[in-house]
């Protein structure tokens, strides 16, 4: 990308902390959305905020991008305070929101021109930059088409390049692959990586998809109920689970019942358990005799083991291990159990 930038210097040396977050708290009435969160993001890093919906990821992002004010605590980006120097911060950042920041009734070019014109970019530079950005995401052909007629994938690409108009030093991505087909997701991920590699842009991305976090991020902060429960590289986080004597088992039981599930849950070697479907259970167990004890427990209850796998840990396991519940249903563990019981009843009657 070419053109003069009027972006203020970020005053951060290579590898230094681009974003500093200290004791950040955000309350909405009695609800604490972000609870005393502190972390640093290094310059040129891709940093992930991983957690279920409602964990406080988006709120953290909104505070950092000056869209919301913290109740307590401070944060700075490139040395500028997000509350006091908000205008300087805004010059440094770009945000790809979960919602598309785009007017359906304007064309791709008009949209980019409008948002670009809100930054102090000279007209000729902006024109050039818009065509470069459209080319970058292969939308040049559609530059004069109304954004309302675009597919979801095209819209998300537009949404991303819109955030790049001011050539931000820090880019915030809020659930960038939400609702996208696998191919579009890959495209967005590749694009973000390229941006980070070629421009040295510092990137913070929130996601609840493990794949995104795993494939994209240099470091990941796992957030649950507004708190950072772990912060490390993906590999180190996984070592939390598989290290030492932990085993991840995927157990296929043909006649899986709620009783059986409860029996497994109460085993003292089982650290956490989650039901994947009506016949499969995923559990993290500890101890050398974990295999034997789990198998015994199932057989003692008349369970028929159909399959058994020893798995490599995923970030999902890390999350389960750290929080005791799954990413996709943070609210209540009992819900899948209840559902299972309802499924089981008619089966017995058939027999």
């Amino acid at each position, binding site marked *: 990308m070419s053109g003069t930038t009027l972006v203020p210097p970020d005053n951060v040396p290579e590898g230094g902390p681009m974003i500093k977050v200290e004791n950040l708290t955000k309350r909405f009435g009695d609800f604490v959305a972000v609870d005393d969160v502190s972390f640093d993001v290094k310059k040129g890093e891709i940093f992930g905020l991983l957690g279920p919906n409602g964990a406080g990821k988006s709120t953290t992002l909104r505070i950092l991008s000056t869209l919301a004010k913290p109740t307590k605590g401070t944060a700075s980006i490139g040395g500028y305070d997000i509350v006091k120097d908000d205008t300087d911060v805004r010059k440094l950042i770009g*945000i790809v*929101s979960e919602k598309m920041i785009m007017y359906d009734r304007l064309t791709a070019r008009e949209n980019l021109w409008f948002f670009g014109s809100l930054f102090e970019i000279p007209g000729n530079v902006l024109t050039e930059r818009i065509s470069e950005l459209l080319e970058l995401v292969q939308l040049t052909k559609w530059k004069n088409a109304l954004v309302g007629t675009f597919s979801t994938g095209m819209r998300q690409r537009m949404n991303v390049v819109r955030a790049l108009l001011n050539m931000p030093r820090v880019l915030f991505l809020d659930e960038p692959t939400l609702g996208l087909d696998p191919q579009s997701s890959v495209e967005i991920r590749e694009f973000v990586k390229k941006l980070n590699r070629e421009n040295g842009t510092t990137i913070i991305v929130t996601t609840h998809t493990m794949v995104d976090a795993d494939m994209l991020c240099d470091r990941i902060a796992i957030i649950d109920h507004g708190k950072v429960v772990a912060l490390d590289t993906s590999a180190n986080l996984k070592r939390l689970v598989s290290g030492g004597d932990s085993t991840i088992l995927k157990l296929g039981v043909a006649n899986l019942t709620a009783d059986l599930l409860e029996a497994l849950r109460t085993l003292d070697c089982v650290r956490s358990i989650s039901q994947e479907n009506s016949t499969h259970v995923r559990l993290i167990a500890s101890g050398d005799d974990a295999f034997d004890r789990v198998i015994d427990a199932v057989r003692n209850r008349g369970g028929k083991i159909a399959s058994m796998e020893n798995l490599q840990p995923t970030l999902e396991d890390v999350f389960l291990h750290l929080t005791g519940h799954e990413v996709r249903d943070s609210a209540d563990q009992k819900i899948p159990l209840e559902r299972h019981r309802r499924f089981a009843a008619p089966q017995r009657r058939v027999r």
Partner: protein
Amino acid sequence: MGTKATLSHSFRIAWKDILELYRNKFGLVLLIIMPLFMMAMVGFIYPTGGSTASNLPVAMVNSDAGFHNSTVASQTFIAVLQQINSKTDMMKLTTAVSAADIKNLIQEGDVEGGIVIPSNFSASLASGKQGTVVIITDQSNPQVSTTIETLLSSVFNEMSTMMAQQNVQALNSTITANESLAIVQPYKVQTQGVVPGAPNYFDFVAPGIMAMVVMMSVMTGLPAAISQEKEVGTMDGMMVAPINRLSIILGKTLGQTVRGLLQGLIILVLAVGLFGVTIQGSILLVFGLLLLGVFSFVGLGIVITSFAKDQQTATMLMTTLMFPMMFLSGIFFPIQQMPWYMQDISKMLPLTYASDALRKVMVLGAGIPDITTDLAILIMFGAVMTAIAVPVFRRMMTR
């Protein structure tokens, strides 16, 4: 950040809004149709003169028993009544059998009212008493009964005058008809307006409707536009840009004002072209007043936007406020007709002053010096509301 940058950003936001409006063809059509409906409604349904009712079906019974077998008095009455009616075509007279018959006819909806000449009509007149005529009215339709009453009283008036004239001429045969009229009715009223021509009800309402539509358009449009951008998420796009928060409201207001003025212009064209309204004052002043009206209102719109959580709430809040304003600002009914407490409320609404000033300019051809009070109040109202609105809006934006 400089004023120039703030203004330039707000122009861009306004331009974006206008472009969006222009692309929304259906919305554009509605934008034109709304004032059209408004005008047609008011222009055709509301009475355009003092007496609009025509050809009201009215039944009449002459039960006059006469005086010495002469019913001249009642015959004369009927003749005069018919003569006046044939000039104005207010009533369609039919003959009924009795007072009871008339009541039946009214209940069945065949006639709107009835006139009964009682049996002692001639006798009373001949014996020096007043002649009474009974009007049977349909209580469910007070307007019609008022019309009949007005008509009959003018018949009596004319008859009384005629009889008095005859009496005077009988006393002194040298007096001419005109001279006798001067004796009987020494006073006569002649109505003269400030401007030539006969203004109708429409001249009265058109300026008010213009003021109302422009302000309503901005007042409902602004909260809707801002909360829509908040809901869709595009507001964040503007919020993360390094621009003054003020330019966002300014730009949005500007866009909505253009929309409102466009509607005002449509009304003006319709009023002049279709309803024969003449503009006595300067058109520039008319638009200047509309702009000032918008300014006086916009603060209120912004405050409401800031408090409403979503677009629906904002629109509902706005409508709730707009409705009483429509009726209390003297647009359709003169404020002077209202009870004192309603008049007091009316005096607190900026729309009252905007429509008053606009009316003076459009109907009476007033200039700026004639409407200084209205102008001062509008400017004050706008300044106070804006002073409240701006900090409220700023706080709302970064919650």
